[in-house]
C-alpha cells in the first residue's frame, strides 16, 4: 500500500470517532483534500509528498489518484450504495470490509495524529458543510478567482495550487 492508500484505510478505521460508519466518495475526497491543505498550513509541506494531484471539479476538489487508490484497495474496502440523510440521492459509500486484516507500514504515529486532528475538525460535518470548508481554502479561492477573471464557470480538471496556503502564524513563530 502507498501512503494515500494507507491514509484512506486509516481514515475509514477512525471515522467512528465522528459517529459515522462509512464515508461517501465526496466526503473522502474532501477529507483527503483538507488533510493536504492543513498539512501545508501547519508544516508548509505536502502530506502526500506531492504524489496526489487534486483537481477542480464542479463539486470542488477531486483526485484521480484517489479513484486509483480505491480500486487498489478492493481487498480491504467495500463499496455500497447508501442514501445519507443530508443528500437526496443514493451515493457510493466506503467501509472497511468486516474481518479484514491490514498493516499500515508507511503511516507514522505523528501522521496518524495529524489525520485524526483533521478528521475530528471536519469529519463529522454533513456533506454540504464539508464542501463549504473545502471551498473556503486558499487553493479553491485562488481557482474561483481565476475562473471569475476569465468568465469561466468551472476550470474542470485544472490542478489546485497548494502553494497558495498560508503557513499558520504560530507555526511560523516556532520555525521562524
Amino acid at each position, binding site marked *: 500500500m502507498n501512503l494515500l492508500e494507507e491514509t484512506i484505510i*486509516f481514515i475509514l478505521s*477512525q471515522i467512528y*470517532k465522528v459517529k459515522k460508519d462509512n464515508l461517501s466518495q465526496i466526503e473522502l475526497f474532501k477529507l483527503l483534500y483538507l488533510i493536504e491543505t*492543513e*498539512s501545508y498550513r*501547519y*508544516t*508548509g*509541506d505536502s502530506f502526500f509528498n506531492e504524489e496526489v494531484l487534486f483537481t477542480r471539479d464542479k463539486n470542488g476538489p477531486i483526485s484521480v489518484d484517489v479513484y486509483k487508490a480505491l480500486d487498489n484497495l478492493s481487498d480491504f474496502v467495500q463499496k455500497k450504495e447508501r442514501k445519507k440523510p443530508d443528500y437526496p440521492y443514493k451515493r457510493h459509500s466506503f467501509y472497511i470490509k468486516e474481518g479484514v486484516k491490514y498493516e499500515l507500514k508507511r503511516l*507514522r*504515529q*505523528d*501522521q*496518524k*495524529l*495529524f489525520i*485524526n*486532528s483533521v478528521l*475530528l*475538525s471536519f469529519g463529522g460535518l454533513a456533506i454540504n458543510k464539508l464542501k463549504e470548508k473545502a471551498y473556503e481554502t486558499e487553493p479553491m479561492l485562488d481557482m474561483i478567482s481565476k475562473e471569475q477573471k476569465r468568465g469561466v464557470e468551472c476550470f474542470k480538471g485544472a490542478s489546485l495550487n497548494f502553494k497558495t496556503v498560508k503557513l*499558520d502564524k*504560530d*507555526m511560523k*513563530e*516556532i*520555525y521562524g
Partner: protein
Amino acid sequence: MDSYKIGDILYFLSYYFTDTNECAPHYAMVVLPSILMEYESQILCCVITSNQEAKKKKYCISLSLDIHKCFNRETFCCLNRRDIESLGDLDLSKKLPLSILTKDELKKCFKLFKNIKYSSIQNNYFVPVIVREWKRSLIV
C-alpha cells in the same frame, strides 16, 4: 471512552518517562486527548514535577497552589518532557482529573511551548498537531 481534555491533571500509577527510560508513579498534564491517538487507550501527556530544579528550566511553568489543591508544594509543568502513556496506568482510586489548568495557565503553556526549539518542520507532525489542537482548545 475517557474524556480527559487538554490541561487536565492526571495521576499515573506507572508513568513511563521517554527521556530517562524510567517508570514511576507520577502526575502529568494532558497535552493531547486520547481521541486523537490511533488507540484510544493512549494519551499524550507532559510531566508535572515538584522537583525544584524545574524552577530554573526554561520550558517549565509553575502551577498555582491556590488553584490546584491537589498539590501541597510548588509544582511545575514541564512542556518539553512529553510522553505517550497508557490510560490503563491511571490511578482510578482518585477522582480524575485532579485539577484543570486555567485558560491563563494554558495560554502561558502555549506561549512557552512555541519557544521550545524543535528540530525540523519536515516529516514531523507532533508539533503541528499540538499547535492545531491547542489553538482549537483555547479558542473554544
